[in-house]
Structure formats: C-alpha cells, structure tokens
C-alpha cells in the first residue's frame, strides 16, 4: 500500500500493491498512475542497447536514393537538415536536427545510463538527473513522425523520378518500434524507489510509508 497524488488532478489516493504486469488508474481522471512491468530493468536495457546500434545505422546509412537521367543522389537524416541550412533555413534545420537526431540519441543515451546506474545498490544520486534528462528528451524525439515523413516524401518524389529506399530507412523503421518498446517495458518507479536520497536524513526508515516524507 502506498499513498500518492495523481499528476493530472492532484487527487490523493491509497493504492494497494500492484502486481507485475498490472496497472492502476486514477479514480477521478482516469490517468494511469502505476504501470508495473514484468521485467522493469533488464528488458529495457537489452532494448536500449539494440536501439543504440540501430540509431548509429539510421544516422550513418543513406535513407533513400534518387536516380534520374543517369544521375544518382542520396541523403542521410543529418544531410536533410544540412540541405535546409544551406538553403537559408537555419532555424528549421536546427529544429529538424534536434527532433530527428539529437533528441532520439539523447533519449537512448540517457536511458542507457539510467539502466546501467540502476544495476547498483543503492542507485547513485546522479541517476536522478539522467532520468530527468531522458524525460525531457522524450516528447521531442520524433522518430515515428520522421518515418511517416520519409514515406510521404518518397511517394511524392516517386512521381518525378525513380526512388529507392536505403538501409537507413529500414533502421529508422526499427528505431520507431524500439523506442516505444523501451518506454513500455521500463518502469521509472523501480529506479526512484531504490535511489539514494538527495537528503539522506529524510530517507524513510524501515516501517515508514516510503511515499511520504518531510521536505527540507
């Protein structure tokens, strides 16, 4: 049993122990409060390492190629942002680079450091900052939106010239599945419950309700 407040409506509620694989929703606004994973640390770690490898391929390999009148052109993700930059759209180029490269890479790397740090006991305090950064990167990591964008561009250009999908595009497709899989299998509560407290004096002793404490 532990007490918590809903992040969306602030309602205080006492939750019974949620079994692995189980979920609890807010009684008032329906927001998911707890979603326990069956394997909260090892499975996301395996998926994160896979995502890191796929991320490197997605950024290094060409996304698609174009052939017309005996000429061939191809582009990578960052090459797309760079051509925007060269055409005088520096701000757009920066936004594209952030949402397509920096935020996904940041999310994967910060999550990787969280999952590696969480293997120690107690979980070191720096993991809190890594977890916060991973959360900040998450909404801006738009791999699935980019994938759809690549497909639409491919179909548009196919009207004009012969286009061929590259290895990078398949890697983006794989990354599009891996990132949500990491999010679903990873349970941050697992880390928060074992983390070394920022204020060691306020840390709960055995028998206390671990969810409530006095702030400094």
């Amino acid at each position, binding site marked *: 049993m532990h007490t918590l407040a809903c992040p*969306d409506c602030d309602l205080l509620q006492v939750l019974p122990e949620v079994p692995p694989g189980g979920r609890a929703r807010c009684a008032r606004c329906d*927001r998911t409060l707890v979603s326990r994973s069956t394997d909260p640390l090892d499975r996301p770690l395996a998926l994160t390492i896979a995502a890191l490898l796929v991320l490197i391929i997605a950024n290094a390999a060409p996304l698609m190629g*174009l052939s017309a009148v005996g000429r061939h052109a191809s582009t990578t993700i960052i090459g797309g942002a760079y051509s925007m930059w060269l055409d005088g759209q520096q*701000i757009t180029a920066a936004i594209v680079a952030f949402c397509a490269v920096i935020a996904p890479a940041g999310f994967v790397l910060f999550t990787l450091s969280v999952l590696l740090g969480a293997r120690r006991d107690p979980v070191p305090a720096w993991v809190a900052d890594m977890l916060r950064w991973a959360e900040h990167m998450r909404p801006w990591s738009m791999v699935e939106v980019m994938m*759809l964008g690549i497909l*639409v561009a491919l179909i548009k250009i196919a009207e004009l010239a012969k*286009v061929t999908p590259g290895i990078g595009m398949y890697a983006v497709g794989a990354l599009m599945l891996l990132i949500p899989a990491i999010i679903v299998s990873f349970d941050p509560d697992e880390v928060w419950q074992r983390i070394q407290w920022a204020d060691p004096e306020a840390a709960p002793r055995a028998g206390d309700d671990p969810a409530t404490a006095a702030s400094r």
Partner: protein
Amino acid sequence: MTDEVLTAAQSGLIACEDCGLLSQSASADLPGFCPRCGAELRSRRDGSIERTWALVIAAAICYVPANVLPVLGTTTLGSTEYDTIMGGVVFLYTSGSWPLALIVLIASVMVPLGKLVALGYLLITVQRGSIKSNRERTRLYRLVEFIGRWSMLDVFVDTFTVALVQLQPLMSVQPGAGVVFFAAVVVLTMIAAESFDPRLIWDASAAQES
C-alpha cells in the same frame, strides 16, 4: 462523486513532478526541494496560465504565415513554382494518393488548429473557474499532449524532398519561407501544452467544496 475527495494541495502535501514522492511542505510559498530526487518542489506549475496564453498567442500568430507562405519551391528548367501546405495536400490528392493527402491534411492543418482551439478552451474554462466536465477536459489535455508531435510531419516531408531533389539544372526543390513558421507553430504549441497544468482544471471544484 464521493465525499472523500481530497487533493494533495488541500492536505498541505506536494507531489514531486519528477519522482512522484509526496512531501510535507514546510511553507506554501517556499516548498523547497524533493528530499528523494532533489527536484524543486511546486504545488502547481509556475505562471501556468500566463505562460500558456503567451505561447498559444505566439503560435496563433505564426499559424497565419505558416499557411499563407509557400513551404516548397520547385524549379524546373528555370521556372519556379511555389506550393503552400494546402498546395502540397492538393498535389498528393490529384496524384492519386488520397490516403496520404488525408494524413497530411490532418497532421498539418487540422491538428495545429485543433490544438490552438483546445488550449484556448482549456485556458478560458480554467480562468472562469468552471467545474463542469473536468474529466473530459483532462482527457482533451492529454490528447493535445499526445498528438502535438505529429504536426512536425510536413517539416520532415519538406526536408527530405529538398535534400533529395537536387538535379540542377533540370529540376531542384528549395524550402519556402513558410516552413520556419510552420515548425515554430509545432514547437510553440508543444511547449504551451507542457506549461499548462491540468491540475488547475480540478482546483475550481476543490475550492467550491471547502
């Protein structure tokens, strides 16, 4: 609704926005830091209403040039043709791929407009202290938060079209002035959704009960 409804704020508790830990705040004005994860504690997001309004208005201003100015220019043998976002949708429709035209229409035209209207509606109802359909309004907020990123679709389409179609002097594509405004609408509405605090929707009901 049951009579056993109590929020953290009413009981002098603050839930950490990062790790979820409930803390007893020493004083309401200076809540301090979360003892577990070290994040700054705040009962509600700072200046939520004002900040969200400012971002929504800025996004609404950018929405006009985003739709009026061209996002792509296609140069074929010296003559250049410009396309707006709607022009791109029409191109996809006439070239036979109506499902794609529909996806781009929803992601690029309807979602940004819908987000602006939805956030404006949430802000006005919160400012008026409405206690009606709190659940639905919270759901609307979550929808806005979830769907916002998909508007970036057209920016990615334009980026990869520009990067690939560079067959000078035969044919080349350049970005138009509208792209940056369009990207700005998406970024501003995403930050607006992040700065809006959904707990404000429920605070009016709490104030009325006590």
